[in-house]
């Protein structure tokens, strides 16, 4: 039998249903892969017992002739931003080291209710702040990909969902959860040659997801095919009364309705995304994407999103402002780390705990957020950023008069080497130039692999849709996937 760890979510689900292999065989095979892949540092905690328990339940249900659940026996990875009952949840921060939630996040609970099992908690950028997975307290995640020509420099798997992207690309998990605040699902997906979708803001409950910037944070799936993303998203999304921004809407049948036929669709190419200094390989990839969607029947039109260049600076006010408020809860009192020297008072304890518990990038963003919200600066920074955000959302609204979807590159480059950008926060922030605008507007957006650069590294294409049109986004993703024929995979060195 071929190796089950080469299979995706749909193939595993169907194989278990048909009895081609047992859920236990699948779980055992992935557990071994995970345990042997320590060099990637993709996991903070491994939970083989969880995956095996779900598999046993599935095999027993099948033996009893019961109808199997939608994800019965499929093991997945869980980003460490999701609270998992009794399993350490840290957001990759020292300040939450040892924290074992007494509750389960809504999204993870939905996945377990659908029959999935958990292989472990995936490493990430600390509090989801980063684009390279270099801000985790638990060490960098190493991308399974390497540049060609014997260059073994460790590469960034993208961030913040870098443990998720690395694990999926390395085939040690078939799929995983991610979260996306400004590109944290799409950029790592692009860097590692996999797919990932951020749904419309409000589709997935934020309850039990460690908060970074609440008006932007959205959970979404990452996997190696568009169909697999659709399956996972169907089992993550849905109304949750415990999240006040959760949308009270039924979950569409995204998988059943998938179609790569784009006849009748208009796809917009935003001219402002042709940024100065765009590498020719990214331009060429974009053109191939345009040709593929035309081949699938779509009409391609140029559109304008005039406020695009202001999206990143607006984001770097809004996200740190919300983070500085959200992260005020880490005070050394109710959970997590406490630093208290003999003779210190309560204020000293707060300051010492937060100094010891937060990483450098987290502190930087809390300080920026505190500054822009402080008396005298609030209107100049925060209110102005929220007004610009309105204009960015209006840009998209205006574009929908001319098209149904937008096609852009996902990131301005292929994966860079670890350490290459970590000394310059601004250079790092610019990685999210193509993903942040749709985050600010709350729109569904996905990245699919489009090909390799000349160094043999994956490049991604992004599709952005109207609010609630995940189906349109997935369909265009599928049309590209069918034409890109992306089969490259990293050679195992781990």
């Amino acid at each position, binding site marked *: 039998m071929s190796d089950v760890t080469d299979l995706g979510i749909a193939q595993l689900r169907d194989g278990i249903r048909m009895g081609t292999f047992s859920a236990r065989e699948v779980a055992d095979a992935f557990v071994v892969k995970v345990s042997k892949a320590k060099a990637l540092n993709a996991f903070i905690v491994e939970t083989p017992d969880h995956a095996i328990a779900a598999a046993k339940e599935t095999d027993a249900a099948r033996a009893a002739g019961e109808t199997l659940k939608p994800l019965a026996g499929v093991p997945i990875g869980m980003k460490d931003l999701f609270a998992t009952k009794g399993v350490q949840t840290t957001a990759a921060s020292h300040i939450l080291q040892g*924290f*074992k*939630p*007494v509750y389960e996040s809504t999204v993870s609970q939905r996945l377990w209710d659908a029959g999935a099992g958990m292989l472990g908690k995936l490493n990430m950028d600390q509090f989801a702040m980063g684009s390279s997975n270099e801000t985790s307290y638990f060490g960098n995640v190493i991308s399974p990909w390497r540049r060609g020509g014997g260059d073994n420099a460790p590469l960034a798997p993208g961030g913040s969902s870098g443990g998720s992207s690395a694990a999926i690309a390395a085939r040690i998990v078939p799929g995983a959860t991610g979260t996306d605040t400004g590109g944290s699902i799409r950029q790592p997906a692009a860097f590692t040659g996999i797919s990932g979708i951020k749904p*419309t803001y*409000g589709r997935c409950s934020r309850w039990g997801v460690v908060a970074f910037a609440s*008006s932007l944070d959205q959970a979404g799936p990452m996997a190696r095919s568009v169909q697999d993303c659709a399956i996972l998203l169907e089992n993550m999304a849905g109304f949750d*009364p415990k999240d*006040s*921004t959760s949308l*009270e809407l039924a979950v569409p049948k995204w998988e059943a309705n998938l179609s790569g036929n784009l006849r009748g669709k208009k796809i917009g190419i935003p001219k402002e995304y042709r940024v100065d200094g765009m590498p020719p390989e990214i331009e060429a990839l974009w053109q191939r994407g345009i040709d593929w969607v035309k081949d699938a029947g779509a009409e391609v039109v140029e559109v304008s999103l005039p406020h695009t260049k*202001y999206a990143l*600076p607006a984001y*770097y*006010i809004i996200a740190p402002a919300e983070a*500085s408020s959200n992260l*005020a809860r880490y*005070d050394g*009192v*109710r*959970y*997590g780390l*406490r630093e*208290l020297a003999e003779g*210190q*008072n*309560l204020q*000293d*304890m*707060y*300051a010492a705990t*937060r*100094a010891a518990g*937060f990483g450098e990038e987290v*502190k*930087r963003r*809390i*300080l*920026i957020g*505190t*500054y*822009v919200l*402080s008396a005298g600066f609030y209107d*100049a*920074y925060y*209110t*102005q*950023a*929220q*007004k*610009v*955000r*309105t*204009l960015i*959302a209006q840009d998209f609204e205006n574009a929908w008069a001319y098209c149904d979807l937008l096609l852009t590159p996902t990131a301005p480059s292929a994966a860079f080497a670890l350490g290459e950008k970590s000394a310059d*926060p*601004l250079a790092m922030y610019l990685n999210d130039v193509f993903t942040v605008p749709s985050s*600010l*507007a*709350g729109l569904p957006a996905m990245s699919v692999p489009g090909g390799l650069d000349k160094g043999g590294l994956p490049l991604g294409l992004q599709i952005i849709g109207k609010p609630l049109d995940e189906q349109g986004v997935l369909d265009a993703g599928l049309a590209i996937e069918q034409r890109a024929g992306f089969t490259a995979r990293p050679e195992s060195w781990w």
Partner: protein
Amino acid sequence: MSVDTATVKKVASLARIAISDSDAERLAPELNNILGWIEQLGEVDTSSVEPMTAVIPNTLRLREDVVTEGQQRDAVLQNAPQGEHGFFTVPKVVE
């Protein structure tokens, strides 16, 4: 505008993060660099624009004013760094 080390220390104090003098000196130019870049937002004419409050139109729901998940003191205290007699404990704040 420019952030000096005194401002960095003040903001850090507001954010309850202890920082050393050398941290403040290192952070001042870093934050200035980021804030300088952010200031390009000032170019945008927003005089007739409302600040965004919700990305997707949604109404806040009301629920019955009843206890939903009460009686969970021990669970709530389970992850406390320090607790006594069913309470969180902190250094003495009143003399």
